[in-house]
């Protein structure tokens, strides 16, 4: 009944030209019934409230583990293992200090950052020309080759584990940063080619021709004109390269021993004779998420296009 009346009233009010909704509703509220007004307000408020509630619930569920990690990283081991507490009773930074003073720990970050940067550099410099070729030239089997690149992402890294291990061991690359960087090219180069090709194809090829007509040589055109045009694509690609290389554990753990051991691998070896060092582990976890958050912050406006591989 209430609902019916409201819709009828809406229908009557809306065509009246130039009357703002608030004026119209004030007028009707006076001569009809204030009950309708309240019902409508409740309905509107209710739907907003419900969606806010759902959003909050979703965020809480999603952020809970991260919150718990931060919570643990600020507690001492005895507090972690003690009674359930939703926040640190005694905030301590000892776990973080421990990581930054123990070279076994912080070298893990240095190693990870080293091979991730190497991998980003190698992948992007290989993928840029490759993506340009796929985007601009027609050659026999180009489409098949392009698809084959993608299939490289479908094979689990475990498949390549044994050959990499054996090969690197025999040529003396085992336990070096470059070994992991090269191994990660397995999935990162195809990914980079895919993303960059999309961005490059959205640049009309007439731009290339105009540059040649103006007298640019290919290298100077590529560096001075073309790369600035796909800046955001390169940014997004670098983010993806970073992300996949940073989170990969299997290859990086197997191909390293001590000199190039990544942080994720060190984190899996925290159980000692005296038990697991929960606090330090949690602090290491927090420090591992941070670089990702920083990188995402810089490419946040381009990332949706990146997920669509530049094809929007």
């Amino acid at each position: 009944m209430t609902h019916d009346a409201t819709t009828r009233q809406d229908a009557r009010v809306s065509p009246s030209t130039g009357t703002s909704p608030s004026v119209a509703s004030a007028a009707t509220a006076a001569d009809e019934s204030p009950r309708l007004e309240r019902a409508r307000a409740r309905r509107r408020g209710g739907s907003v409230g419900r969606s806010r509630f759902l959003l909050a619930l979703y965020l809480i569920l999603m952020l809970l583990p991260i919150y718990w990690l931060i919570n643990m990283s600020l507690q001492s081991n005895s507090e972690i293992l003690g009674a359930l507490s939703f926040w640190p009773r005694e905030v301590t930074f000892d776990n973080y200090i421990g990581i930054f003073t123990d070279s076994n720990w912080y070298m893990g970050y240095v190693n990870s950052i080293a091979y991730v940067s190497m991998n980003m550099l190698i992948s992007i410099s290989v993928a840029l020309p490759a993506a340009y070729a796929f985007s601009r030239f027609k050659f026999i089997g180009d489409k098949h080759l392009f698809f084959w690149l993608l299939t490289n992402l479908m094979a689990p890294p475990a498949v390549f584990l044994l050959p990499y291990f054996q090969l690197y061991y025999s040529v003396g690359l085992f336990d070096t940063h470059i070994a992991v960087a090269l191994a990660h090219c397995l999935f990162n180069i195809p990914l980079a080619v895919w993303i960059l090709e999309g961005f490059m194809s959205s640049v009309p090829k007439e731009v290339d021709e105009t540059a040649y007509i103006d007298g640019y040589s290919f290298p100077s055109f590529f560096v001075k004109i073309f790369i600035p045009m796909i800046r955001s694509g390169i940014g997004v690609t670098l983010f993806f390269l970073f992300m996949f290389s940073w989170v990969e554990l299997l290859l990086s753990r197997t191909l390293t021993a001590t000199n190039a051991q990544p942080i994720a691998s060190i984190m899996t070896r925290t159980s000692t004779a005296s038990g697991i060092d929960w606090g330090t582990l949690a602090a290491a976890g927090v420090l591992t998420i941070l670089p990702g958050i920083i990188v995402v912050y810089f490419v946040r406006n381009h990332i949706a296009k990146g997920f669509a591989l530049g094809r929007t």
Partner: protein
Amino acid sequence: MSLILENIDHVVNGATHIEGIDLELAPGSFNVLLGRTLAGKTTLMRLMAGLEPPTRGRVLMNGEDVTGVSVRRRNVSMVYQQFINYPSLTVFDNIASPLKLARVPKAEVTRRVRETAEMLHIEHLLDRYPQELSGGQQQRTAMGRALVKDADLILFDEPLVNLDYKLREEFRQELRELFRMRNCIAVYATTEPNEALALGGHTAVLHEGRLLQYGRTEDVYHRPGNILTAEMFSEPPINVVPGLVSGAEVTFDKSVHFRLNEDLRSLPPGQYSFGVRPSHVGLAPQSADDLELQVRVDLAEISGSETFLHVSNELFHLVLHLAGVHEFAVDEPIKVYFPTHKLYAFDHNGSVVHIPPRLGSL
């Protein structure tokens, strides 16, 4: 500086895009390539520029064979239908880039860029970036880059298509002015006959990868070599009516006929196609020997301040080009007048056999 295309063929994946084109462009000439979409205008321009090598044939510039020479080594410039600029460079640097690459001294670069920008009325925009400009200004920037370097050959590939009507007219006028004092070959592709007429110079009519006719624009317009050229170089297309010449009469189908006038008397008896321009068919008789036809209105199409009136009866389907905006009811019976002394006659191959001697206006 002259440009000669010798028997050019261009085949892409087995499909012939350009077939047997022979064309000689005179130094300092302004040339229009007229043809519908897919007629091969863009391909021909790319061959002229050297962006693609022809499959067969030779391209000569100044008598020198440049067939396989890359575009970088030829002194050409090109303006595209899309607004192509370098988004990372300012308008100034966009226009300056051909000069900088040619290692022109800095002061000279600044002087010439300013000069070109003034010519194109974009001197106040030199510090901006292309994406901050309107479409017309972006295209002016692209033109600036093409004009600044004193190219031997400047190619315009439908540069005004993406601009609005008013801007187009403005540009067209300026363009002719710009080229009046230059000694380079300009080639301008368009699909619109009116644009070709407005630009003047020479016109090459292309159809399905072949060159139909090349000559002074007025000559090509008034003296089309065949029926296709006549159709192409007329907006709306020329009306074509089949007719029989026998004895002293021309008969359209069976009932409508008129006496052979002086102009047509030289035609031997036989079947012909007669062409009459839409602007020559009128609602009032223009001379005593006009043929009066009773027709019905199919459609009155209003384009700008002109009306294209489509009429038909059981024998004819005609289009009239009337000045001004006219309103007609569909199926309204009207009388139109068919000028018998303004007829083109084409034989069964489509070649022109008679051209009306009194050249009318548009």
